[in-house]
């Protein structure tokens, strides 16, 4: 697992950045999504991958036994997923509105505010 996840994360970042460099802004959104997934996996991995040891405290015990999964990382990821859901929903609406207004999805044609 420790070998596979970094490869997947790297692939997601690379693919996401590649998509963001494209001229179409639909691909920009897809790229953002891919990087977001990569980031979530990265948090998951960097907190340490432990198999089959959920962070449960035995009845009677007061502290977590050593070697269990870190429960904080999934909590962070859940928050990040909720946030990215909201952000992506907004971005989709923005992209649709912009396409309706401009009649193009080519980023290179959106230069009126830069002049």
């Amino acid at each position, binding site marked *: 697992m420790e070998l596979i996840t970094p490869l997947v994360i790297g692939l997601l970042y690379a693919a996401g950045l590649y998509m*963001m460099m494209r001229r179409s*802004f639909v691909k*920009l959104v897809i790229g*953002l999504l891919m*990087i*977001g997934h990569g*980031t979530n996996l*990265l*948090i998951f*991995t*960097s*907190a*340490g991958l432990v198999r089959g040891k959920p962070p449960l405290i035995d009845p009677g015990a007061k502290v977590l036994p050593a070697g269990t999964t870190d429960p*904080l*990382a999934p909590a*962070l990821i859940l*928050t*990040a997923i909720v*946030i990215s859901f*909201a*952000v992506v929903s*907004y*971005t989709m609406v*923005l*992209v649709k*509105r*912009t396409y309706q*207004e*401009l009649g193009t999805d080519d*980023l290179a044609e*959106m230069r*009126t*505010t*830069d*002049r």
Partner: protein
Amino acid sequence: MNFLVVSPILIPILTAMLCMTLWGRLRVQRVLSLVGAVALLACSVTLLVLVDRNGAAVSQAGGWAAPFGISFVADRLSAIMVSLVGLCAVAVIVYAIGSLDHRRESMGFHALAHAMLSACSGAFLAGDMFNVYVWFEVMLLSSFVLLTLGGERGQLEGAIKYVALNLLSSTIFLTALGILYGIVGSLNMADIGLRIRSASDPSDIAMLTALSMLFLTSFGVKAAAFPFFFWLPASYHTPPPAISALFAGLLTKVGAYMLIRVFTVVFTTDQGIVGPTIAVMAALTMLVGVLGALAQKEMRRILSFMVIGPIGFILMGLGVAITATARADALAETLGAGVGEVLALRTAAALALGGSVFYLLHDIVVKTNLFLIAGVVLKIKGCAEVDKIGGLYRSHPKLALLFMIPALSLAGFPILSGFWPKLALVRGGLQAEAFGVVAVALVASLLTILVVLRLWAEVFWKNQPEPVQGDFCAMGFSGAGRPFRKPLMYAPIAGLAAVTLTIGLGAGPIWGLAQRAANDLLHPAPYTYAVLGDEGLERLDALGVPEHPRTRLTSAPIDADLHAEGHHP
């Protein structure tokens, strides 16, 4: 005290929620919004006064003790920043009621503006890195909607660029957070700071320095610092003036604040490398900002570039302070902590960082005001392109006078508010022997005068040019709907100008405050004690940082030095 620390977050979020539930009732929303803004200002100023008197105040969310729960920390810098959020809130809400078109105002402006204010306060007060990320996202989402409110073509185009780059920067921030948690195993800023100080393995330190560069990139995008500023001039001039003013005053400053916070409290490794990097970024930011402003023709685009330039000055103080501290630490190891050179470098660091804090404080007021004034010009002329308008000095002398105060302050004319922080920055830079960045700062200041005088000459002094047949104003803005209410637009401008004058004329106490805030940041003890209590101080002692004062209040040997040498403006 506990409630007071989180009140700058709770009051606006409550106002936003109430405004949401009263969707169709604009009049009630306006009253609520104004009351909320005034309450925010009152609470945050009270917080500032108390924090300045008693030292940093902390609220632990849910009563969970510090490294485990989420802390909200109001030290002097945070309290200064939330007070300015309150000030901006009052000014912009009054102005928006007087100027914003009916359609935009009834489509949730008040709710969104307060959501954004709450997120800004949250980011300033958060003592937990992940919490900062959450506030950043809340701030971004509300600013996205504010930016596109009304859905005009320019706004949508600007928004795509703004959204794409800011989301990328958030993702970089989250990536850096994930790696940081993996290495350090904590999210509380004070706790991370202590753990990073105790890192001794060279490979860990190298990794942490690389990681700090990820944070630098991410916050650099938010602050619109040199290589990452492109989204700002592409978007800030597109929404209605009230919204631009809110953005210009607060949003990039959150990034600048986070840079100051992260590189003083959290990352203290390899300061000899990080400091000069920030200083170079700062120098280039100043130059790009001012040269960009000289090349532009539309008033609000000129001002957009003038949002970028000052970020350079703020970062300059940070870079100089970090470099000087690193050199002082290195010298103290060989020569001893009490040697004159070491003390001189520490004084220089405090001067430069104090200059940054003062600049931050002055710039929020001035920048908000200049965008508000640009909005009035836009209402009067229907256009803000400088070669198509003119003659405002003759027709609106009061407006011209009100423009002079923030504009000359921005340029840094003596006795106005922009002069003092620049003086401190330059003195600190010279004392720390950072001659390159000081030279760039002086050149940039000189060119800023040119930008300001050009605005004055083109917009106010010269006669109104004859309109050319078939010529239209490309960046015109449809402010239709309701004729604007002049007093409601002039009152916040006059108020902010008065604040600028007060800061300039009463610079002594403000400088004292900025200096105390800088001392809090340069010594780990006050912040650590506030968040982690005695346990934090014990851990700090175990690390062996004996030259740092251990008291809760900033005992200020450096401050005293300054008074003795007469550096006090």
